[in-house]
């Protein structure tokens, strides 16, 4: 994992910066400390199979987190991620299960439903001028409800083998979702950090007026960002569907908050401008490792939520302390 110490250096605060691989040092530090501490504390923690377990457990949230990172980069927010995940998975499951379509349709359906929900979010936000918080909160309800309606509230069980392979297959002993998760991380990082699309997103988040003055088509760009986040939610829905071999309308409840937490933990600024997919990957892993470790230590789920909340605040605070020192 590349991590230069840019958080401590006086970094320029504009969206167009050159620290393309920069991730918040503090979150890497927290991750390392967690891994070391848990290795000492639990005899079951430090093993290849357990690390694959952590990556598998983090894959859905991670992919959602990448989606969150894109919209937050442009000072937006997507609260519909968890619901869109569920709706996508449900539609994907029904396409082969109820409509008897061939299995590739399920993949396309998941992604298309996600992207479509994102499109609606984007258009309502950018063109109709409804605040992102409201639009996506509305979508949270609509998508969740639609999924329940389509399935009558019941999980739709049983997918064709190729789909199940996407979720449960283990080429070279590594779960398929982990491959997909990491591949998406690389692509998403490239798009956000190296392409004009990604850089403009951060410029918009940093200063929308300036972005407009630069000639960036802010509205269109914003819609595209919501489509990306919806698409990733659809992909997460596909992963979920494949992993549990059923389209579950109650899947992904409150995942949007966890996904946003991963992004923030990774150094993305909740108010836009500064965003890193690599950081979100680290942020998601911090939560995954923490949860896994506390499970292995048989710590009650009550304390687990406290721990994750505390780590979030701690990481952001460390970041601010360092940033302030850097600017002095």
């Amino acid at each position, binding site marked *: 994992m590349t991590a230069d110490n840019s958080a401590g250096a006086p970094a320029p605060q504009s969206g167009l910066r050159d620290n393309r691989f920069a991730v918040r040092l*503090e979150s890497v*530090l*927290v991750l390392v*400390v*967690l891994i*070391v*501490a*848990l290795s*000492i*504390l*639990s005899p*079951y923690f430090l*093993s290849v*199979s*357990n690390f694959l*377990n952590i990556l*598998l*457990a983090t894959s*859905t949230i991670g992919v959602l987190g990448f989606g969150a990172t894109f919209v937050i980069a442009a000072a937006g927010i997507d609260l519909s991620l968890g619901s869109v995940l569920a709706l996508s998975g449900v539609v994907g499951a029904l396409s082969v299960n109820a409509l008897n379509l061939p299995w590739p349709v399920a993949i396309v359906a998941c992604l298309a439903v996600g992207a479509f929900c994102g499109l609606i979010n984007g258009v309502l936000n950018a063109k109709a001028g409804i605040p992102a918080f409201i639009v996506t909160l509305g979508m949270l309800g609509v998508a969740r409800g639609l999924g*329940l309606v389509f*399935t*009558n*509230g*019941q*999980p739709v*069980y*049983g997918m064709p083998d190729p789909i199940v392979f996407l*979720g*449960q297959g283990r080429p070279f002993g590594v779960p398929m979702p982990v491959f997909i998760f990491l591949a998406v991380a690389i692509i998403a990082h490239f798009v956000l950090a190296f392409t004009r699309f990604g850089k403009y997103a951060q410029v918009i988040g940093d200063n929308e007026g300036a972005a407009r003055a630069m000639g960036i088509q802010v509205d269109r760009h914003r819609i595209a960002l919501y489509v990306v986040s919806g698409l990733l939610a659809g992909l997460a829905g596909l992963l*979920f569907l494949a*992993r*549990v*071999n*059923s389209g*579950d*309308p*109650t*899947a*992904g*409840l409150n995942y949007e908050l966890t996904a946003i937490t991963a992004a923030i933990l990774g150094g993305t600024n909740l108010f836009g401008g500064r965003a890193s997919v690599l950081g979100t990957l680290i942020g998601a892993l911090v939560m995954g490792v923490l*949860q*896994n*470790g*506390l*499970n*292995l*230590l*048989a*710590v*009650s*789920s*009550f*304390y*687990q*939520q406290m*721990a994750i909340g505390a780590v979030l605040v*701690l990481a952001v605070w*460390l970041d601010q*302390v360092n940033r302030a020192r850097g600017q002095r």
Partner: protein
Amino acid sequence: MRIKTITIGLSAALLAAALAGPTSAQDKPVYGVLLKTLSNPFWGAMEQGIQDGTKEAGVEYFLQAVESDQAAEPQLNTCNTMLQRKPAVMITAAINSTILLPCLKQANEMGIPVVDLDANLDHEIAEKAGVKIAFTIGSDNTAAGGQGADFMAEKLKGKKGSILVIEGLAGNITGQKRAKGFADQLAKVAPDLKVVASLPGDWDRQKAANITNDTMTANPDLVGIFCANDTMALGAVESVYAAGKGGEIVVIGVDGNSDAVKSIKAGRLTASVAQLPYLVGKQAVEKAKEVLAGKTVDKFTYVQTLVLTKELMDAGNDPALQYVK
């Protein structure tokens, strides 16, 4: 350096958490227990039964649960993590009928028998997914609904009127079985009592209270309410009292949780069809031990349910009452 201090602090906190956690002796077999959540008296009583059961059986156990009974994928992740500890048996209360199947399949492959606690799995689907369930133990939810209907019919003997059924979370199998068991039995034993509405209350107290209000408005002749769990029954009964119909409308819940017991003793809630999660947990451990000893056990075990009323508790002589926690 500041970060160093915090790093050390974090490690210390983790160490403290680890020391505070249960330590397991490696010489005894360790049973893995995965529940839905602990923020509910039902599961608390279940855990108590498991604890007492393991103590008597002379085995260790480690117990995990997730933050809510809706957190399906987190439960799957937790299940996978538990397998890292290679428990002798996995006793699981799955959040829905399919979510844990990949993990349980892996457990089977590791030679770990799987117990379906509280009857959340579908044996047919599980078999298709390659999961062999050692046995299912829980309460018969259909029968519990039926018991509620029998009680309602007796309580309202000779009366005519409307009945409201408040179901659980849409699509939840437990709630469906209870509601259906109630409606089917009521149609048999009390043809004069008509179910005018059967609505999902999503296990939520507030929602059940609102449904009750609306239904009382639409049906002034409402004489009875059956709720698929106690939480909703407690909401419904508050609406009944607020409307000045306290004591006139019979309100029945299911579970027999401690809040419901209090309300019944206070003369507000009419009755609750009590499950005995303590017994379910205890017997699950006992049977799991038999499975591990190579004995064959019944595929399904249904633990009795009990209609809790003020009279029954005041009399206090039913032997099953000792398991009501």
